Every structure is written in C-alpha cells, then in structure tokens.
C-alpha cells in the first residue's frame, strides 16, 4: 500500500498540476496574509477606541452620580474582532459590530428613561458601492479552490490507469483491490497536502511576523483544528474523485462529470437553497413590530397615565414613575429580543438547509473555530445581555447600600446622589469560548466525516466490482 502511495506521490510531484496548484495556493495565501495585515490593525484599533470610549463614558457618569450612570449606561457595546479573522470572514460585513444602547428615551425635557439595549435592524455596508466579491479568506481558499484541486488530482486516478492499461498490470500482481484504492487515496491526499501545508505555513509566517497580532496558544489550537477540517474536507473531494473515476471509462468524461458536480455542489447549491429559504418561517416584519410596539406602549401608558404625569413629586408619583420607566425598558427590550429571535430562527433554518452542501458545512465550521460569523455574533449578543443584567444589578446593589436613597431606580429624586467609584462599575468584556463552539459544531463535523465515509466506501464498492 505504501508502495502505491509513494509511486502516486512521485508521479504527482513531477506533474504540471502540482506546480500550478502550488503557485495558485501560495499566491492566494500570501494575498490573504497581506490583506489581513493591512486590515486587522484597523479593526483592533476601532475596537480599542470603542472600549476606551465607553470606559470614559462610564467613568464620567459615575463621577457625577449613580442616577446618571443608570440613565446613560455604557452606550453602544462593541464586538471584539477575532485574531483569526483571516480564516473565515463569516459575513462580518453584514453583521452589526455593535449592540446599540444609544441615548435613553426622552419623555420630556426633564424626564428621561433609563439605558436599554436594542439591536440594530439596519444592514451595515449600505455605503459600499464597490463590486461584490467573495472575501478571500481561508474559507474561500479551502472551500472553493482546494476542493477543485482535489478533484483535479483524482479524476484520472483509476480511469487514467485503465486507459493506459497499467491498471490491469497492477492488479495482475497479488495486491488486493482495496489496497490499491487506499494507496491511491493516500498518495493524492499527501500530494495535495504538500502545497496546501506549505502555503498555510507561509501564510502563518507572514502573519506572525507582525508583532501587533500575537496569536496565543488558544489561537494556535484553533488553527490546528481548522487545518484538520481542511484535510477532512479535502478527503471528501478526493473520495468523490475516486468514486467517479472508477465508474467512468474515460478520464475526460470523468473530469466533466466531476466539474459539473463540483459547480452544482459548491457554487450553486448553497446560493440557490439560501434564496429558497426566505420563504419559510418569515421573521417579524417592521409593520408588525411597530404595531406591537405601539400596542404595548398604549397599554402601559393607559395603566400609568394618571399617576406618572402629575406635577407634584410625592412618593407615590415617584414610585409610579420608577415602575413606569423600568417597565418601559423591559417591554422594549423584550419586544426587540422577540424580533431578534425570530430573525435568528429564520436564519438558523436557512443555514441548516444549506448544510446539504459540504462547502457550507466547512465554512460554518471555519467560522465557528475562527470566532467570526453568525454563531459568534449570537455569543456577542448573549454577552451584551448578560452584561446588561450585571450592570443593572450593580446599580440596584449600589443604590441599596446608600441609606439616604429612596431606592427608586431610574429617577433623579429616588436614587443615591453620591458619585460612584469608576473602578467598581462593571466593564463589558466580550469573550468567546472554544468548548461552546465545539458542542454546536460537533454535529457538522460528524456530518462531514459521514460524507467522507460514504464516498470512500462507495468508491471501494465500485472499485471492487469494476471489470478491468
């Protein structure tokens, strides 16, 4: 078996396709690294500016009073850019980088509500009129280019030998057929892995030369996983190539079939299926959203109208006002969350449908291990929600410690007047955890492995039964 693999490898190393693949992959990976080195510092800078921005904001309000702190809050919360952004861009251009928590609602000139979260409904990237292009990340290089290369390496593995008559020669020796097949598979795997590994190493070398972008141990671990996923995905297409190559008599026909299968599977299926999914489980339309919004507010207003808007500021009015403000925030946030959840569900649905295409699987996997894309966005949203709870608890607790306060959150007369130490105010920190990623992604990994197994055993069955 090793002998066959070795022979295949030597054959491939001298071939034109090996040279072209090396050049193509190297060019792509170098471009990727250069673009990353150019763009990433900007992203990090933007995030750092935002972090200092809301730290300053919190500190300045904390120095004023607890009331202002609760009212103004930390402002917009920003998503931390992933150091592995070059692995998978993950549609970040279309995902909002912030959870908005802009200015609080103004009821009137002297009455302002409290800080609340809202999720931007607008699509960013409206300003950009440059032509559309797929982002040149590892996801593209692996998903599109590597799969094509894998097919080009295996389309003639069996049919080519049969055409030349060497297959009969080989099988005349006492080698079992599965050994031949596995040898061919391993030979192709190694010969595609060589240029791929080379280009990946050069890519990482270029990226790690920049001292600003330090990849920590965890990032390297993730890169290792991504590399393994790439190999798995590559084997899928190698197995497909072998399968078709055994069934077809001429290598040219085999390539035609493989290319058309590739085009359908990789290029069209994710797009077409994605456009179809818009039909199912529609999200909340803006008209419906505003209808519910108005309805909720009307109910709330009716309930509190007579108590909140009186001019005297006795304890009853103040309590009602505090209740009104906090209910307002709760209702708003809940409605926003409802809409967000519907949107998330619809998109999840779409993603699970396009999972039929292996390229979609591999791109989802890369996204989640690189810490970008949709799942990461969900994690970020969860982080902001947790932080918002934490922040509110902090406000309540601090207020409770002040004996002079009337413990009515959200209104000036009802809260502690004293300034708060800026150091004690909780800071928002955006984190991402690998273990969680792995659980959500295990299914996709298994699916990918399943595809490989099915195709490999298909190729085996076909090869065993084929007449030479």
């Amino acid at each position: 078996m090793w002998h066959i693999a070795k022979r295949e490898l030597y054959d491939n190393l001298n071939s034109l396709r090996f040279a072209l693949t090396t050049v193509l992959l190297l060019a792509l990976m170098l471009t990727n690294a250069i673009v990353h080195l150019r763009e990433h510092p900007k992203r990090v800078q933007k995030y750092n500016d935002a972090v200092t921005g809301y730290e300053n904001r919190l500190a300045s309000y904390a120095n004023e009073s607890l009331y202002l702190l609760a009212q103004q809050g930390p402002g917009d919360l920003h998503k931390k850019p992933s150091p592995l952004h070059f692995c998978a861009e993950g549609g970040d251009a279309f995902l909002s980088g912030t959870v908005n928590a802009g200015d609080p609602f103004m009821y009137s000139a002297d009455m302002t509500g409290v800080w609340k979260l809202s999720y931007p409904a607008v699509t960013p990237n409206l300003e950009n009129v440059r032509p559309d292009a797929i982002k040149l990340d590892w996801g593209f290089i692996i998903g599109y280019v590597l799969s094509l290369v894998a097919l080009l390496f295996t389309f003639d593995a069996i049919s080519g030998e049969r055409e030349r008559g060497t297959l009969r020669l080989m099988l005349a020796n006492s080698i079992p057929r599965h050994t031949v097949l596995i040898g061919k598979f391993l030979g192709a795997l190694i010969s595609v892995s060589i240029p791929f590994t080379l280009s990946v190493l050069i890519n990482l070398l270029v990226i790690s030369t920049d001292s600003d972008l330090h990849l920590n141990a965890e990032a390297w671990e993730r890169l290792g996983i991504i590399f393994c996923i790439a190999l798995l995905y590559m084997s899928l297409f190698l197995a497909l190539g072998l399968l078709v190559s055994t069934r077809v008599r001429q290598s040219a026909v085999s390539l035609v079939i493989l290319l058309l299968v590739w085009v359908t599977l990789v290029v069209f299926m994710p797009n077409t299926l994605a456009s179809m999914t818009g039909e199912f489980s529609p999200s909340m339309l803006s008209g419906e959203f505003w209808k519910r919004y108005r309805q909720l507010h009307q109910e709330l207003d009716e309930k509190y109208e007579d108590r909140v808007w009186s001019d005297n500021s006795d304890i009853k009015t103040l309590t009602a006002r505090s209740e009104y403000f906090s209910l307002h925030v709760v209702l708003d946030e809940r409605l926003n969350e409802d809409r967000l959840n519907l949107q998330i569900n619809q998109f999840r649905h779409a993603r699970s449908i396009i999972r039929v295409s292996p390229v979609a699987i591999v791109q989802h996997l890369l996204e989640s291990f690189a810490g970008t894309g949709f799942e990461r966005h969900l994690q970020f949203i969860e982080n902001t929600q947790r932080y918002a709870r934490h922040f509110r608890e902090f406000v309540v607790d601090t207020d409770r410690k002040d004996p002079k306060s009337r413990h009515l959150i959200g209104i000036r007369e009802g809260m502690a007047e004293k300034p708060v130490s800026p150091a004690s105010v909780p800071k928002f920190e955006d984190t991402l955890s690998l273990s969680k990623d792995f659980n959500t992604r295990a299914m996709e990994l298994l699916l990918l492995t399943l595809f490989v197994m099915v195709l490999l055993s298909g190729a085996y069955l076909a090869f065993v039964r084929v007449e030479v």
Partner: protein
Amino acid sequence: MMTLIRRELLDNLMTFRFAVAVFIIFLLVVANTAVLIKDHERRLAGHKTEVQKSRNYMSEGKTYSVIELHVDRPPNPLSIFNTGLDKRLGNEIWVYYGHIPTLWDAEKHSSQNPFMNILSSIDIVFIFQGVLSLLALIFAYDTLAGEYERGTLRLVLTHSVSRGHILLAKYISAMVCLLVPTLMSLILALILLTTSPSFSLSMQDFLRIGGIMVASIAYLSVFYLIGMLISSMTRRTSTALMLSMFVWGFLVLVYPNMIVAVIQPSNPPEERKASAHNHIKQIWEAFERERKHYLTTDTHLEGDPYGNLPWRDGYNFEHFQDKVSVLQYYYHAGAEIDGFREARESQVLHVQDYHRFLVPLIIDAAEHTWRVRKPVLEELFVLPATIDKIWLRLSPTGIYDIATQALAGTDLNGIQDFFTAVQQYRQSVIDYYYDKKVFASREWFSFDKAAVDWRTLPQFSFQRSDISINVKRALPDLFLLLMINIVLFIGIFLVFVRREV
C-alpha cells in the same frame, strides 16, 4: 468547409459532455429562475407595502414643515439576470427640502431579515459566468490537441483544406453546440418570467435581455477561444485539460475575488472626510448665526419663533442631523401647531415672516453643502468602485459582469439614475413650495385654519433609463469582449499555422 463543419458538429453533438452540458444548464437556469422569481415577488410586495406606508406618513403630516415625503426604490425586474447592486444598496429615501438626497442617504426598508443578507444572492449571469466558461473549456481543450494525439489532424491536413478553414469550422461547430443549450435555457427562463404575473416586461426590457444574450455569447466565445489556444499550444490533451482548468480557476474563481481584496484606495479617505465634514459644519454654523441674528433682531420673536405664540396643542422640533460617515449634515425643523388660544394674528404674521426668511436660507445652505459634499462622496465611494472595475476588466468574467450589469441597469449608474430622479423630485417640490408661497403661509407650521392637502403636491415617478443609455454604458465592455475574441482568434491562427503536425 461545410463538410468540416458538419463533421465537427456531429462529433460534438454525439458526445456525452454535450448531454451533460444541456442537462446542467437547464437544471441550474430553470431552478434558479423559479427561485429568483419568487424572490423578486417578495421584494416587489415589500416595495408596495412601503409605498403604501409612505402615503400614510404623508397624510399623517398636517403642516408643510412636518410632511414626510418617503420615496421607495422599486426592484429592477432585470435584476434576475444580474443582481448587481440592486438588492444590496439602500432603497428607501426621505425627501426633505433642506438636504439633497443621494444614494448614501438611502436606507433599507426593514421588511427583510438583515441576517439573510449574509447568504449570497445568485442570478442568471452568475450561473453563466461559472458554467458557460467551464463548458466552453471542456469543449475546447481537445479540439486540436486531441486530433493531434489521435493523428487525425495529419490526415485532415493532407487534403487541400487550409488551416484557417479548419480552425473556423471547429470554432463555428463548437459554438453552435454551446449556443443551443444556452439560448434554450435563456428562452425557458424568459417563458417562466412572462408567465409570472408580477413581471411586466416592456419592449425595451426584451431588447436589454437581447443585449445580455449577445454579451453571453461573446463571453462564451472568449472562453472557447482560450481553450482552443491552449489546445493548439499543447501536444497532449491531458496537459491541455489541466492548463484549461487552472486558467478557468484563476480567471473565474480567483482573480475577480482576489483583486477586490487587494486593491485599496490610495489616498487616506478619513482625512479627506474630516476636512469636508468641517467645511460643511462651517456652512451650517454660518446659517445658524444668521438664523439667530434674525431671531434676535425681530423683537416679536425674542429668540424662539414659537415662544410667544400662545398655542393650545401640537409640537415643534429642531435639530442638526449629523452623520460623519456619509457626510450627512443638515438642519431639520418643523412644527405642527393647532389653534392659538387667543387670536394674536400679528404675532402669527411674524412667525410667517420668520419662515419666509428661514426656508430659502436652509435651501441655500443645502445647495452649498451639496457643492462640497458631492466631490467628496465621489472620491470616497465612487472612485474606489471605478478603480475596482478597471482591474476587474483584466478578467473576461469581470468584463461580462460589468457589461450585463450596465445592460440590466443594476450597476452603479443605474442606481444613481434613481437618485437623480429623487433629486429632481425634491427640486420640483421646492419649486411647488415657491410657487404657492408655502413657506410664508400659515399652513407651514399650523393647521388651525386648514390642513395641508397633500394630494396637490407633485408626485414622484421614476422611469428606468432609456435602452440607448444602457447600451451606451455597456458598449465599451461589449467591444472589449469582441476585441478579446478577435485577438484570441488571431493568436490561435498564428500558433496553429506555424505548428508542425
């Protein structure tokens, strides 16, 4: 000659790859057209509800100063052929006399799930880009190298046929073979389109589709000729095939995406933006000084136009809108006041005078801002796109995409046409205001005497640009495609004539 063509044609038609080609093109085009039609219907429905909604907004405003004129960009039916920027860019814009609307002020009406934008959209040109080029190469790679390998080339050349004739015969027959599935699938797509009730295609649209067909044929021919060139230069079919596949991967898959990632605008846009923003801010500060000056000189107003008006109900607002990223800066004010408590008509007249003075001043400042803003917007957003397009033209795929976008009217120019129409609409609204002396009227800020009848306002209408303009925009790229065809053919001829058999 004819015998040659006939022989080649029969050879090609009987092959397995021809069957597969027909099948794949049919499958992809028909399935995607059905999906695209559904998608278009959805967008059209969204557009209709938005238009209805904007009518409601309009009728809700009771005074001229608070009327909100929303304009919604209808989806282009030809976006099925090439989506271009039609789907991605903003489609809802607010027309306000104090600000000149552009593409960058538009927003996206939120009837759609923003997450769905991550999933890339597809169109018929995209299918053709990938599949037609691939098929052309698959048909071409062995035309010459294959005959050479089998030795039939020598046989053919022993007859008194010129080499040019052989090339021409091969080219014509293969193109016929490729055109059959292409044109048939396009016609099928058209049949699907015309049976769908939501599409009303005009004569001009059919001509545009005809233009897209011409571009597709030229594109197909470019890739067939590339394949033939490779085939004429190599001795073995397997080498020719390998080279063709890598050329395809590079030209179609890698290059268009790589170049957009690599190119970046050379000048630092942030500084340019900041200085322009400062300039615009100064314009509005000067405006604000003049406004304040007027308010202080008119003793009846005492700094606040509505302050001395004893009014019962209603509201007024004023603020400066400031969005640095697209240099959006304007003064927005309005009032909707109901019945004055006691009839102090002289005071009302003063407020009317104030508006007679103020609104032209706002319009002036807006024009002034526009003169600063326009070149900067061009430089910040349009210039990078133009540079990208120049680089994209190095690949036939890029040329084809740009040409069909221009024909379908979904390129930047096509979208800008809409916003030019919106700007003209704003001008006509202002002209109407001047004509009726609306600024100086009581209805500008109050509706105690009479509410505004918004039906008399000019209505917005937009016609996509004339076909001649579309063709003019697409013509350079179409010519470029044709030129590549001719150059390639000459190249093949030269290589083939010199070749030893």
